[in-house]
């Protein structure tokens, strides 16, 4: 699954790092590092993290791989 975090909105509440620790990690006290392509096995945890984010900074792919450009799919 694909994920992006709007880090200009993120305020380091770290809810995501508690709920999906394999996908979201705190770097120091406040900075967030994340895996933009977490394993599908983590799907439920990542969705819970996205829902729990107090500033709603986590965007999860709504398409699940549809509408992938033809030229790009080969690379």
């Amino acid at each position, binding site marked *: 699954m*694909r*994920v*992006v975090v*709007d*880090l*200009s*909105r*993120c*305020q*380091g509440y770290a809810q995501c790092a508690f709920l999906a620790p394999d996908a979201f990690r705190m*770097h*120091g*006290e*406040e*900075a*967030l*590092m*994340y*895996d*933009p*392509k977490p394993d599908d096995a983590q799907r439920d945890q990542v969705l819970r993290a996205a829902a729990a984010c107090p500033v709603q900074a986590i*965007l*999860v*792919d*709504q*398409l699940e791989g*549809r*509408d*992938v*450009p*033809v*030229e*790009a799919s080969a*690379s």
Partner: protein
Amino acid sequence: MTSADNLRAFKRAGRIVVVGASLAGLRAAEALRDEGFTGSLTMIGDESAEPYDRPPLSKQVLTGWVSAGNTTLPRRRDIDAEWLLGVPASGLDLAANHVRLADGREVPFDRVLISTGVRARPWFVESEAALDGVFVVRTREHAESLQRALAAGPSRVLVIGAGFTGSEIASVCRERDIPVTVAELAPAPLVGALGAMIGEVAANMQRAHGVDLRCGVKVTRLEGDAQGHFRRAHFDDGSTIDADVAVVALGGIRNTEWLRGSGLAAGPWGIACDTGCRALTLDGLITDDIFAAGDVARCPNPVYEYRLISLEHWANAVEQAGVAAHNMVSGQAERWPHLSLPVFWSIQFGVNIKSVGVPTFADEVVVAQGSVSDRRFVAAYGYRGRVTAAVSFDNAKWLDHYRQLIETAAPFPPPSPTPDQPVDTKPVPVDFPGPDLLAQGATVVVTGNDPGERRVTAVQQHHR
């Protein structure tokens, strides 16, 4: 037909071309469909990959945690577009309304969005830039090859340029326990963006993490061995340093060369626009069908005396994409202005650095709350007695408060909003390097006498 009929017909069956298939282009395409645009949508991109996110490239990709190929951007919705990827645009014809591609194809449009972004500024000597072990970081291919070089365990990495990207790369090197030297022409890291006070904090932070930081020096030559591998760098003070990897982090060049001769106000500074992301012609007249968004757009900001500002910020690309898309399918009375304050972040040495506003638009800076020695504080920037920007180190929760101060032109210095009072509350001069470091020289000339004949002509532009 009225203009409302025209607009309805355009929204139903018009042709929109987006040049630049990265964050701004993708988000604009999604917003166009959200706005009810059902006509044809063409996405042109010089890279062969579908849109991907760049901020992780200098962070979690270089640490080796995330593979460079895994940063493809999630989609908010289906955009039903035709994708022309792997070929750059080479020209824009405003008379015929088509985009020319480098392979000779012509793509017709009714309206076009330009979101071609920036590319990495390469090392200025081509033969030295081509040495094995010399890198820039802008694309996922760049990040992937630098990650491999770092994983090989180099004896030392030289980072040229201590802006945000260079500082983040130095931070990753220390995290991977790789010796790193950072060379910066200015007196301190980040000083061009955030001024001398934050520069000193950043310099102390780098040294505390074991970075060999050398400021006020210029790298004059990159030397290779007989096999063409980078081995040594020469400085203008006569000293040298031995390293296996050099990362050139000297900022970006806006991708506007392809617009030369198009008649748009495009140059090394970006593409001049109104707040609605509509591009200006070289004469400074507004266009109706040409829009720009993201790193390449240069828009006026009323909060900063209507100065034209271009920003290489993630959130700016997202917001301008939304405004541009809305305005591309809206009539005059419904258009939106892009009035957000710039917001920026950088993660380095375990600290979350964020800013709101325009720190370079300031004459004084003050620590408004927290503790500089703990590297947990907010600095407020002021210009002629009003708050114009704020920078936080591990204090991001407070930036929204400062955003409101900036938007309401609150007096500077502002009172501390918390009991977390700083030791020293006296403003100091902000002290940026002079504008001569940034000046580009003349880029246009004005000709003609009668008002009907006055025209602006572009001067041939040279990149340093």
